[in-house]
């Protein structure tokens, strides 16, 4: 069967408020349903069990919010991007509202392969003062490696490689925020709360992490980091 022409629409969305408690699977299913409600002419995969042709960026864990997340959706017909965006916005719960939509070349690399850089903000409650937090983070960064144990597995991260930018601490009205950029690798990604949690633990401070938000997802190019 000849491949029909399809159009690859890249949609940016959020995972905000209460919806940060959803799993990646739950987010994917909810967005697929919003696409059907928007009545966009989505393409369907060939094969024994046909389904909507869509691809999502890197997963966000349960509890982590996202400001600029992405999915690609293949359409059978070209719907002007602003119209597609408006239809999606009308059919999506506010916490996952689409923020932008544009067509990308069919041959563009997949989101999951292209998006290797993630920026995060980790909120820390007022139980830990900003100065103490700065010192705690510095102490952890002084080591070259970070060992993380999760679900019975131990992972060792080379900090120079997973942290392409120096983390920084900002103080806000009700506590402080650790702003950090991580590089996601084939062997796994460093969870930002693991790094901050370790910093607090080593410094003997309370585990006062309040929120974790992925603020940006970026592609790494020779010239630096770029949004998809």
């Amino acid at each position: 069967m000849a491949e029909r022409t399809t159009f690859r629409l890249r949609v940016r969305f959020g995972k905000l408020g209460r919806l940060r408690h959803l799993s990646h699977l739950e987010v994917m299913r909810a967005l697929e349903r919003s696409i059907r409600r928007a009545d966009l002419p989505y393409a369907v995969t060939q094969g024994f069990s046909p389904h909507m042709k869509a691809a999502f960026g890197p997963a966000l864990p349960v509890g982590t919010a996202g400001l600029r997340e992405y999915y690609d959706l293949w359409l059978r017909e070209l719907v002007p991007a602003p119209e597609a965006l408006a239809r999606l916005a009308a059919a999506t719960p506010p916490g996952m509202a689409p923020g932008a939509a544009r067509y990308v070349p069919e041959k563009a690399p997949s989101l999951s392969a292209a998006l290797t850089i993630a920026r995060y903000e980790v909120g820390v409650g007022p139980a830990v003062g900003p100065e103490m937090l700065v010192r705690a983070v510095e102490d952890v960064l002084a080591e070259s490696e970070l060992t993380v144990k999760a679900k019975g597995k131990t992972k060792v991260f080379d900090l120079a490689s997973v942290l392409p930018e120096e983390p920084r601490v900002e103080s806000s009205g009700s506590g402080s925020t650790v702003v950090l950029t991580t590089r996601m690798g084939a062997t796994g990604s460093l969870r930002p709360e693991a790094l901050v949690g370790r910093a607090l633990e080593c410094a003997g401070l309370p585990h006062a992490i309040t929120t974790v938000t992925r603020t940006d997802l970026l592609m790494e190019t020779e010239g630096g980091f770029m949004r998809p």
Partner: protein
Amino acid sequence: MRDDMWARVEPLLDGVERPARYLDSEWGVRVRPDASYRVALVYPDTYELGMANQAVAILYDILNEVDGVAAERCFVPWKDMAAAMRAADVPLHTLETLQPLRDCALVGVTLPHELTYTNVLEMLDLAGIPLRSVDRGEDDPLVIAGGPCAFNPEPIASFLDAVLVGEGEEAVLELVEADRAVIEAGGTRADRLRALSGVPGVYVPTLYVSADGSAQPGCGAVVPADAATPRMVTKRALKDLGSVRPPTCPVVPYMDVVHDRAVVEVLRGCTRGCRFCQAGMVYRPVRERGADDIVHDVMATLRCTGHDEVSLVSLSTTDHSQIEEVLRRLSRSLEGRAVSVSLPSLRVDSFGVEMARLVAGGGKKAGLTFAPEAGTQRLRDVINKNITEEDLLGTIEHAFGAGWRRVKLYFMLGLPSETDDDIRGIGRLVHKVLDVARENTPKDQRGGLKIGVSVATFVPKPHTPFQWEPQLTLPEVRRRQEILREAMPRRGVDLSWHDPDVSFLEGALARGGRELSDVIEKAWRSGCVFDAWTEEFSLPRWLAAFESAGIDPVALASSERDPADALPWDHISSGVSKRYLLRERERAVAGVTTRDCSFDGCTGCDACGDLGLDIVLGGASRG
């Protein structure tokens, strides 16, 4: 208020399994903060089970259309969340506006089966509502139950202020209207209950007493305490399903719930007349929805929810007189959209297989499920399961010839009059099914061929012709299971059992009277909750509860009742007369079958006459 409450709830979510159960904010939620009369609709189990319940979805839709009324969902938090809520002193609340249940005007609980009873107590306790109706005060909500267990509400009656028997679409509006009028007029809780008992189909347990205080458990009539209370509470049923608008924009869960798909009801009732089947007796008569309505609602529901699957539900969907037309129209409309249609149950004949084929199209052929229920013709005649061995084998031939490779068969153990030979008959039948399946499967595909065989223990239920029959004792179930295991083919069969311990408890609770309230409360106090969850169920804890209440569960489940004696559910009428049930019982003993009255003439169950209804086929009354 709402934000304050969320600020108390959200910190609990980081430490619990599946927080999506507690979030609200789904597509399709109805938030009506300004309503003056708030109803909590409770499903007494977790979110993922409750969101699959159609009764909750229907009542949610109907009540939220009423001016000044808000209906909000509430499910029982899983054990981890319940512990966190108790530790943080967070009362059980609705999802939509986080209203504590104890501040609602009405708490409506659906009771799908007996194993949810302890969850009802858990719900009340988490909400801070006194467990027993008699202990509730003016500021407590009215707790009203409905659903299948309303047909024998006695075991749980002490915890309920009222029970709505039968279909709720019209009755719930009358009930809310009656209650609002009393509240408006400044009436007391007693006035509210009195007003509810005046609504047809509503039973108010505190207005009734046991006629004979010395009656043994599971026997004895329940009668009105005064002359102003109706002697008999007759179930509510819609004359015509076309008169109500089913929900086409239900709430769309985030979480992977049970039956995660759109649901459209195609008909209500079933008159095949299987003598063990409570649903087939209490939801009479058959009322079909018209093909146009069904097709319209399927398309509207898919558009509004974005689901990729729709299930056409009822007690026997492939019996709908226009099902073929409906499925053909749907497969045309849904072409190329990767949206599938599913049928929950199939008739045991070629027509059933053809309908399954229409639904599957060229795509995936999921397994087919058939329910012969018994292994010999003699026993199938006793239970009035009007299918023959030829029907079943012909169906299997057709299904495997059409490309299906997986079939599941349902049987019951311990049906009235069952002999060891009937049990071996299940083995013989499965052997034949396996042979036919092999013959109709290409040689290279025969290796992986499997027949699923699922065996449940028969539980006699109220309002059926078998309501007087004894249930097998546990040792006898085990003996008969051994016989069945011996008789089964050694290869090509996946044999599974419904846990006999669970069926035993179900049987003891199903036919008990009000004396079981103490047992249920003791069981809950000793830690029984989520009894329908295999890993949570504990028969020893339940047995201890029975013992400390001085009630013998074996006598309750496994002794034969005398048809001359009153039963604890005699004051609840499903419309089907006791006379008919007794006649069907005699015919069962004689091995005589009874035809389906929807197609072959009236069999005299009295439901139509008692309820002022008629059979409705294809959306039009047969008249």
